[in-house]
């Protein structure tokens, strides 16, 4: 193994420029993909936090009477995914409204009757996604006794559609850049192979097996992929530290923004993927050359 590593070190030195180009391409591709992952990881977390921890208000129809409450609760529980339920009678809702509106309540005293409906505030189980809440809401809304269900579906729904579109574009861009990195890696190996053709020919003449000839190329591909991945992660971390401190300073007072760097699992997956990318580029090239 040490002999192979020494050989790889010599080969990398003799093809320094090609190797730098490949490592930089892998690093940039990994950086781009990681930026998308970092953005989506954080955006998903922030969006779910903005979704009030999966809370929804079930507004009951006028035909509801408090005697029906146990039956309604039972129906809601049977739908699953509901962690907590709090019944808010319309009188309590009016009191709450008066409290929230403070000095601007004079117009409320002119009302002949309470216009607010009885409601049940439900909290979904912690792992519920926006889509799950949306589905549960639709099921609840289908009940006769329920008038409407509100869970911030208006703006959040529109934002999620935009977010998903952006996510798709992100996937497509990541795929494209990974393909470009793969082809550049494959071509570098091809060029390195042709640069060492005399050497390979001599190795064959003295009885080297294909495995003996290929192994240094594979080790080189794995190293290029790994170094490219590490470099991409370092650039991402530097960018993250610079940007996140700026964002926190300026926006923390106005909006809830809990930005984290990639989890160690995500970093491990990215480094594994970049190493695999280096190996796979090598595999494609050598398969074509040594058929």
């Amino acid at each position, binding site marked *: 193994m040490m002999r192979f590593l020494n050989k790889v070190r010599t080969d990398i030195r*003799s093809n320094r420029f090609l190797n730098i180009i490949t490592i930089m391409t892998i690093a940039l591709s990994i950086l781009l993909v990681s930026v998308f992952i970092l953005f989506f990881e954080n955006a998903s977390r922030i969006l779910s936090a903005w979704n009030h921890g999966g809370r929804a208000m079930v507004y009951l129809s006028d035909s509801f009477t408090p005697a029906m409450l146990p039956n309604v609760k039972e129906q809601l529980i049977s739908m699953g995914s509901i962690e907590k339920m709090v019944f808010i009678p319309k009188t309590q809702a009016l009191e709450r409204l008066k409290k929230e509106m403070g000095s601007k309540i004079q117009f409320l005293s002119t009302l002949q009757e309470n216009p607010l409906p009885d409601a049940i505030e439900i909290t979904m189980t912690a792992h519920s996604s926006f889509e799950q809440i949306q589905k549960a809401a639709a099921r609840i809304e289908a009940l006769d006794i329920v008038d409407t269900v509100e869970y911030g579906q208006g703006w959040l729904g529109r934002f999620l559609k935009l977010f998903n579109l952006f996510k798709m574009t992100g996937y497509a861009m990541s795929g494209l850049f990974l393909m470009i990195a793969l082809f550049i890696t494959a071509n570098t190996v091809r060029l390195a192979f042709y640069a060492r053709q005399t*050497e390979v*020919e*001599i190795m064959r003449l*003295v009885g*080297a*097996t294909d495995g*003996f000839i290929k192994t240094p190329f594979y080790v080189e591909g794995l190293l290029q992929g790994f170094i490219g991945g590490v470099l991409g992660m370092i650039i991402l971390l530097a960018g993250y530290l610079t940007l996140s401190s700026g964002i926190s300073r300026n926006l923390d007072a106005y909006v809830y923004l809990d930005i984290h760097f990639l989890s160690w699992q995500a970093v491990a997956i990215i480094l594994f993927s970049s190493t695999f990318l280096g190996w796979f580029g090598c595999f494609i090239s050598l398969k074509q050359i040594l058929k």
Partner: protein
Amino acid sequence: MRANSGKANIIRLFNVTKRYGGKLALNDITLDIEPGEFIFISGPSGAGKSTLLKVLYLAERVSEGQILIDGMNLARISSAKLPFLRRRFGMVFQDFKLIPNRTVFENVALVLRVAGEKPSYIKKKVMHVLRVTGMEKKANHLPQPLSGGEQQRVAVARAVVGEPSIILADEPTGSLDRESAQRVLDLLLGYHQNGATILMASHNIEQMNRFSKGRNIILEDGTLKGISTILC
């Protein structure tokens, strides 16, 4: 082409023909070679001397006929087994075929590395062979600054380091001055006297006389024109 003298033949060629497109490079060659023999392959340029060596180490496959090396039929050697066949040969070429970015030591050691020998054995064996070929002091040099004679001595060292039973030499002195050529031939002679079977292609018939016994195979336009015995 040779009466059976009791020794098993190490190389046997049966009606070997090699064509490049429509051109005949070797035409119906039948030949038996005993272990420890010295075979001088002579003939003008384009006679088929190099092709004959190439079909032996399977750089080229024959168009017709059969070749047996140590009882192994070359027609049945798969690509996966080819490296193991080549390890039975030591090869010396006119253009040396040394790896330019590897030291003399590394070039010679390559043969033992591909065979999976231990580093301690490789070091000992390579230094021994370099001492015999007079290249010990140049072990850490790259090949290119060396003279042609020195490079060819490195190539001879590489050919013999794996202790092959057969050495194939294709015009080994073709690009060397008289003195260097002499030194390379002396080295080959030494290994021949130690029991190696040597097939050497050369158009320089004078060189043949340095070997005390052996056979001269004369090729012309790919055809075996005759075999003479060398008796000095």
